[in-house]
């Protein structure tokens, strides 16, 4: 839920990167962190296991600049993708303003993508959200690997309602900022709509 502090003139929005384990959610945030100027970012917090699997969440605060005199900050979170971390995923979705679904394009991960998407819808419902009504963007990651599902097949399995879809190779930064920009724009346009603008 967007937090507007009229006193300190700040707007904070929360974006959550969701998807199956090892799909590229943390890689997205790491690339964004590495590529963003120091004055526009905070610390990248990663609560991970010893084998670098996300345990609870990754968190990256970004300062995007000023809109109508208000400092605009986006808080980017990732969830742990492994199936058994569902309780944690539910917690991190609380107060979400926009969602990025990071799908793993590899053929053998197709079932995991579908299960994760279903899990996202379920967990959002438990917080009173409808995925179709939230700012939402899909990223088909790992497009550089050999054994991948075609764009059209991925789209037919995972796309829902005409949401923007981006192809990416997150570990090389391809598609990462395009995805972020798209979801951030949707969040801000939704805020404009809700304020009667």
């Amino acid at each position: 839920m967007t937090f507007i502090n009229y006193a300190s003139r700040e707007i904070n929005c929360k974006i959550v990167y969701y998807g199956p384990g090892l799909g590229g959610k943390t890689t997205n945030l790491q690339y964004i962190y590495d590529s963003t100027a120091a004055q526009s970012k905070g610390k990248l917090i990663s609560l991970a296991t010893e084998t670098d699997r996300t345990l609870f969440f990754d968190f990256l605060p970004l300062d995007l600049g000023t809109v109508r005199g208000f400092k605009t900050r986006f808080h980017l979170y990732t969830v742990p993708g492994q199936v058994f971390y569902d309780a944690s995923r539910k917690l991190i979705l609380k107060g979400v303003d926009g969602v990025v679904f990071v799908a793993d394009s590899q053929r053998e991960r197709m079932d995991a993508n579908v299960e994760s998407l279903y899990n996202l819808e379920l967990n959002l419902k438990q917080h009173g959200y409808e995925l179709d009504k939230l700012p939402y963007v899909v990223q088909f990651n790992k497009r550089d690997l050999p054994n991948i599902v075609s764009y059209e097949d991925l789209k037919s399995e995972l796309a829902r309602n005409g949401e923007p879809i981006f192809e990416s190779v997150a570990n090389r930064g391809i598609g990462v900022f395009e995805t972020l920009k798209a979801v951030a724009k949707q969040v801000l346009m939704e805020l404009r709509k809700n304020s009667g603008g």
Partner: protein
Amino acid sequence: MYEQEYEQLKNVITRLCADANAKFVFLVDKSGQQIAAHGEMLNLDTTSLASLTAGNVAATDGLAHLIGERGFPVLSHEGERDHMYISKVASHVILVVIFDERSSLGLVRLRVKRATGEMTSIFESIDSKVARERDVGVGFDSPFAEITEDDIEALFN
């Protein structure tokens, strides 16, 4: 968060910091946004503190529900030098007090209890204001009302 209530909250946490002999007092929204802060730890990364505190409380609430409790209203972490006292205020706000040997857990607990009562009233006032204005159809002076696509594009350039 309105200006008047923000100033009131700042006054409460400033007083709490002094009365509890604390190093730092911090208010966080349950989804990890910082609301207000006061204290001597000027270089503290409050953004990370807010996010981690919210995660900590959310995870602890999850544990509480597992064992049939509604929640754990208070968390206390003891360090070698500095300690942290985390408590819930109203339904959606978390209060963090960082203190050292100049204070004590008992004193912090006592002062937090009083401050919590004051802050709960302030947050109830905010909620009432929001509900009243919504009922009457008063629009907020929202910064988004006149935002344009160019404004948004400019953020990314």
